[in-house]
């Protein structure tokens, strides 16, 4: 295998990992809402709007490998990250609840899940979006070399 092949294989793997993260996040959020019956709040929906399509477009970018996937996936991931970060601030109390945009029954700051004392649902979302963004930026640098 030539060096060029190896490099292109790693690039493919980076997008593949992003796809796995997006898929796990999508299935996870569906598990919370459809199986555990946690009602998704308005902010959760905005994050889903940007996470769900990543599963499809990252998969399309894998076959055949298309480096312009960065151009399409990155804006979605960054927009989702923005909502996740805002949600995280709201959840952890840095932003007071009075200015939160949710209404009608479902509160954006009610804690439903608290794994190991620090892992909450908005936190999971923030981690997913952050990892996807970092990986896509790494890929971008590798490709521009």
């Amino acid at each position, binding site marked *: 295998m030539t060096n060029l092949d190896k490099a292109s294989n790693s690039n*493919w793997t980076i997008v593949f990992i992003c796809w796995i993260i997006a898929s*796990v996040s999508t*299935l996870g959020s569906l598990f919370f809402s459809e*199986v555990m*019956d946690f009602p998704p709040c308005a902010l959760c929906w905005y994050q889903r709007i940007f996470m769900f399509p990543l599963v499809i477009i990252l998969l399309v970018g894998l076959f055949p490998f298309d480096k312009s996937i960065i151009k399409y996936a990155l804006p979605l991931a960054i927009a989702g990250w923005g909502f996740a970060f805002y949600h995280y601030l709201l959840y952890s109390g840095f932003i007071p609840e009075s200015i939160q945009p949710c209404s009608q029954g479902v509160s954006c700051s009610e804690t439903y899940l608290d794994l190991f004392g620090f892992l909450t649902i908005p936190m999971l979302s923030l981690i997913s979006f952050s990892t996807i963004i970092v990986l896509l930026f790494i890929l971008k640098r590798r490709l521009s070399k």
Partner: protein
Amino acid sequence: MKKQVIVLISLVCLILLFVLGVNLYKSQRAKKYEFMAQENASTFVRDYSQTLGSDDAKVYLVKFSDPACETCSAFHPFVKKLMAANQGKIKLVIRYAPFHDGADYFVKILEAAKRQGKYWETLDIMYKTQRYWASHHNPQPQRIWQFLPSAGLNLDKIKNDMNDPEITKIIQQDLADAKALNVRKTPGFFVNGKSLPSFGYKQLQDLVESEIKEMY
């Protein structure tokens, strides 16, 4: 070709994991409710709860409902038919989960009607006329009053009784129990402490029938 295989295997693994998680979660939840039904029966049925059916019935059908909820209304005749088909074997317990905005108001009317011995008549009228006062885009709770006389109620007494703080306490206790039992949507059914595997008419009928088979 190899890459396609990797992706395909990952996809299958993820979906399998998801299905496995669903089954694991559901079986654990069922166990938890079973335990609660044995140890904490009052979470399912409180002393004040309105019931229908024979006291000798061995199958308790607990319904967490909201007078303003369309699906609760749709299930009402179905539950009645189920009870008629299994005469004396089912006891229906009505619990409140007034999740709709302002639905407390109707629960208060219903509880006040109970004091006049017209609970079921009032509930029937409420469900039948629901579309006139509980429309989602234009709720008009006041319109319910024009229908209430047909249940044979003394309206002045209702207006007086419905503000009793005892009724507010009942609603709060029911909401707390609904939360403890993870009821987030209405109607929420429990048959002898078992929850529906998934929501639907058929699922409710199957669960009730399997409980009847087990108990009789």
